[in-house]
């Protein structure tokens, strides 16, 4: 048993005897009113989504999950294959579980998996991931005049994002996986 402070993305909650994984959560405190946490949950067995609002301090049945570093290998039809780097065992995770984060996956990156009864129920990406820019249009004189100081580039996993115009093909850049935005040049 925990309370609302234990609710975070990837946590597993028991509600009406069903297990749900938290896909997003937002803390709200109106100040002169009751604070609460709004959550989006996904039923682990049916995959169905639902929303719940918890009053701050309320008891929440947070289920212990095992946290494990896993490495992304490749996409395998509807599934994404990862390797448990301790046991070298391969784990197939359906795209439903990864959700929108599938677009950030690239071969070799490490993510943290939440495992419940041996199954991956959620993954957590690193906050910033390094990608190589594979195609970038050159900066055109006059681009900055209209306030247009970014351009779209394609990264080595196919992801397209907006970056400052000085970024060139072949450079390594960081992408913030929480906002989906450019997070600086890679220092590596």
């Amino acid at each position: 048993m925990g309370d609302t402070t234990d609710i975070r993305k990837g946590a597993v909650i028991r509600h009406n005897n069903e297990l749900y994984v938290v896909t997003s959560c937002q803390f709200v405190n109106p100040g002169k009113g009751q604070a609460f946490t709004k959550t989006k949950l996904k039923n682990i067995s049916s995959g169905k989504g639902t929303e719940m609002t918890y009053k701050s301090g309320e008891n929440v049945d947070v289920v212990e999950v095992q946290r494990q570093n896993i490495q992304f290998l490749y996409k395998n039809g509807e599934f994404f294959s990862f390797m448990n780097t301790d046991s070298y065992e391969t784990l197939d995770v359906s795209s439903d579980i990864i959700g929108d984060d599938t677009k950030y996956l690239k071969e070799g990156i490490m993510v943290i998996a939440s495992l419940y009864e041996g199954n991956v129920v959620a993954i957590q990406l690193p906050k910033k991931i390094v990608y190589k820019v594979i195609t970038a249009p050159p900066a055109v004189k006059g681009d900055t005049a209209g306030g247009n100081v970014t351009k779209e580039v394609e990264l080595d996993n196919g992801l397209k994002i907006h970056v400052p115009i000085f970024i060139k093909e072949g450079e390594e850049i960081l992408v913030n996986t929480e906002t989906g935005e450019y997070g600086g040049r890679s220092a590596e």
Partner: protein
Amino acid sequence: MRSHIVRLIREFFWDQNFLEVETPHILKTAGQEPNIQAMHITIHNEHHEPFYGYLHTYPEYAMKKLLAAGFGNNIFSICKSFRDHESFGGTHNPEFTMIEWYRLDHDFFALMDDMERMFQYIAQGLKIKNFDVPSSLEKLWKRTHMRDLWREYVGIELDNYLDVSSMYELCVEKGFRPNKEESYEELFYRIFLDAIEPNLGVDEPQIIYYYPALMASLSKRSTKEPGYAERFESYIDGVEIANGFTELTDAQEQLERLKEDKNERARLGLDDYEIDKDFVEAVEHLPACTGNSMGIDRIVQAFAGCKNINDVLALPASEIFQS
């Protein structure tokens, strides 16, 4: 856009002869609301003697002290406020910018007009600077009596549930499992958050007015609507953006409410804040007035269409502490 909005807010109040005031951010004691936690600080004088205090969570007590001292003017303040134990990002940042204003000799309906006119003024000013403005922010806001919300979404007459025991029974009836010692406010919010809150301010800004008297906070009990207090909140895109009151001017009642809040803080195991006696005295001399506060970051979010407060801050706490 942010700097234009702050400038337009100032212009809006200056044009109506409001006086801009500044109040201390460092206080000896903090606001009593059980839902707001202040940040502790230690300061030292030249003899290195320590003094323990808090960063203010809102400028309300200090502004009321100014009004009570006989400023004789409508006043506003734009300041940073600080709150602990809230999320870094999303709808909160530990420090945020607030606009708070007080209008003499008016009730809370005047504040609702102020708020609508201020948004129209900002919208016009931004358009002159070639910004796109959501059309919903230029219109008059939807105003809904709290009682009507409970009729529509819960199907009950709120007038019959204005005390702790009836609200407790209603919670049980609706399938909640409240504790016996829960306050009226906690019980109220069990149902409100579940059935009502997700529907507020979805397509257009919305004002909810008249709160049950047991949730009056610093507002005056209504004489027109017995059992209710002259308090409102407003929502844009499901996010609470303002909280306004016809201000309580009865010092005895103010003291009682502060004591209740202090007890509630103790029951919840929160830090104990000393009651600010100067504030209670100020309430005794407070002229009839009405006051509202709004988060400026959230105003910017509404105009810019940003869901996350971090997108309108230069250096959000998550960037400073968590990156």
